[in-house]
């Protein structure tokens, strides 16, 4: 099921979406909701994806937006997309109702290195909405927990009420995932650890950094600092994976919008090794 199902053979325009239907909408933190989408036709392959990949969602009259896949239903017929209503297309998505139809192309891009994580310790680091693309990894780990060794999940948000998927943390903890949370501010003094995510990494003692894979998703600055903290703990840059955000349009590396150095983030990414991108982070406005 976790195979990259992106079609290699194509005779039609790369821009042609298929029609999908909103199955259900689940409100998350303020301004964020998760949309479960199902195929309109009987095309069985159309909801397959690998954790880390993204879809292009299309709202007629508004346009397309790249949204990472934040989970699937157990029977694999639904793909979930956790969306912050912040731009032209995502605000139009806020108007959708269960039963609404929209266009979808995908899945696209590279996946998190699940195979590489097996029989190793894993550290997952999420900032804000960056937890959304990590949830399929967490679900995969939970479903085959014995194949992964020690799993740490560090989650950061600006404030406690902005912690995404908070009601699932207990179940993840039950599945022997060490979930740790930090917030920038805890105004009501609810007892949260305060500070940025890299601080959680700094105070953590990994068992063997050579047998550890890191998966990091969040704002670019947060990922850069998290990766540096991970390197300070002895991880190699080639074992640290990030998911980059750009305005993907075509999603197959032909329109040019999402370039970073030699990479088209849509095609060579979004999941890339820290080694490959770290020197670009050091250059402003690249």
């Amino acid at each position, binding site marked *: 099921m976790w195979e990259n199902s992106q079609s*290699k*053979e*194509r*005779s*039609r*325009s*790369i*821009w*042609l*979406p*298929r*029609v999908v239907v909103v199955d259900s909408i689940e409100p998350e933190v303020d301004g964020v909701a998760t949309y479960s989408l199902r195929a309109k036709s009987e095309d069985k392959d159309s909801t397959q994806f690998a954790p880390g990949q993204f879809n292009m969602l*299309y709202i*007629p*009259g*508004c*346009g*397309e937006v790249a949204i990472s896949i934040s989970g699937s239903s157990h029977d694999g017929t639904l793909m979930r997309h956790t969306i912050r209503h*912040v*731009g032209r297309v995502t605000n139009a998505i806020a108007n959708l109702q269960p*039963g*609404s*139809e*929209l*266009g979808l192309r995908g899945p696209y891009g590279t996946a998190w290195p699940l195979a590489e994580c097996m029989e190793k310790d894993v550290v997952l680091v999420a900032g804000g909405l960056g937890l959304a693309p990590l949830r399929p990894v967490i679900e995969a780990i939970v479903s085959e927990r014995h194949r992964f060794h020690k799993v740490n999940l560090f989650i950061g948000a600006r404030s406690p009420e902005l912690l995404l998927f908070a009601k699932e943390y207990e179940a993840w903890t039950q599945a022997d995932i060490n979930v740790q949370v930090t917030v920038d501010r805890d105004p009501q003094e609810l007892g949260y650890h305060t500070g940025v995510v890299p601080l959680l990494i700094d105070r953590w003692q990994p068992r063997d950094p050579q047998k550890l894979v890191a998966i990091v998703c969040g*704002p*670019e600055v947060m990922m850069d600092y998290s990766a540096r903290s991970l390197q300070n703990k002895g991880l190699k840059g080639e074992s640290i994976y990030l998911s980059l*955000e*750009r*305005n993907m*349009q*075509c999603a*197959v*590396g*032909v*329109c*040019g*919008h*999402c*370039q970073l*150095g*030699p990479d*088209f983030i849509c095609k060579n990414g979004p999941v890339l090794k820290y080694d490959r991108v770290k*020197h670009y982070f*050091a*250059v*402003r*406005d*690249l």
Partner: protein
Amino acid sequence: MNEKENEPKLWLDRHELQRIFDVLIDDGYEIVGPTVEQGAIIYDRISSADDLPKGIRDQQEPGKYRLEAAGDEYCFSFAVGPHSWKKYLTPPIMPLLRVKQKNSELEIEEVIQKPQKFAFLGVRGCELAAILIQDRLWLDPAHSDPVYRQRRESSLILAVNCTTPAATCFCSSMQTGPACRSGYDVALTELKAGFVIAVGTSSGAALVKRLPLRPATQAEMDEAKQSLAHAEAKITKQMPQVDEHSKLLKKLKHPHWQSVAERCLSCANCTMVCPTCFCHSVDDVSDLNNGDITRVRRWDSCFNLDFSHASGTPIRDTTASRYRQWLTHKLASWIDQFGSSGCVGCGRCITWCPVGIDLTQEVATLLEEPVDVGE
């Protein structure tokens, strides 16, 4: 030099030039070639030898383009103008999809373009190289463009060896010209009395069979060779012969990007006239009468502020960063992506830059700096 330089060639008398048009039209080709429009030589649909820029010369300098009448019979005595063949292979504005919404049901279908059979007349060496570079993007089986593929496969390329390079040309240092190297069906060299013709493909051979040709004499072939040698000697501008790939990418923090930005208007002209720049956007256009929507592809440019953004914020919000993106992509990261430089040395970006920024000089300045700046 021309790989078919020493093969026997054919000869077409100047007064028979119209026959090429007659045969192509007879074969159902739509001929696109150079013609004068609004003070520039552009590529447009033409139907007769009279449409060609007969006796016209061009004067090109950084930021300057002028035509003048020489009053002679030469039809191809100019260098490249503002258009390139990408205008016909990837139209600047092209509808891709039609979207209908009926009672909350969504219907999306592809806009099928009418097949086009073009004969491109007057394609220069640098432009053949540009087409081959664009092929790598648009014909990649993983995401090939159906319209590009159809047009590319059906089109006939009648190239012309460039004997009149402009002051902005630097094809010889990019190894793309002035002679046509590969990728043509036939290649013409214009002399005073007529044309020396080389055949590149079987389609080209089929075409020349129907033309009133005779074998070219040794003297004619020598004269053609000589005029190409003259052309090569006239080209003095050069791209610095360095490993731009590794060297330029070590100059990302060089202060010179800012000094270019003080002149650059971020107008995107260089990317529009560039024969290899491929960036594009797709947007929805609504029909106000019935609510139907067309998804339309348009050429876009990395010089536009909103070209690249993340989390609603532009990635490159300075002219310096956008110029750096364009130049390092064209000359360096293009090599990682497609296996060759994205520059063919046609000089259009120099001529059509309103302030005359010359990329060859900017590269030279960037590489002069002995210390590495910002690896």
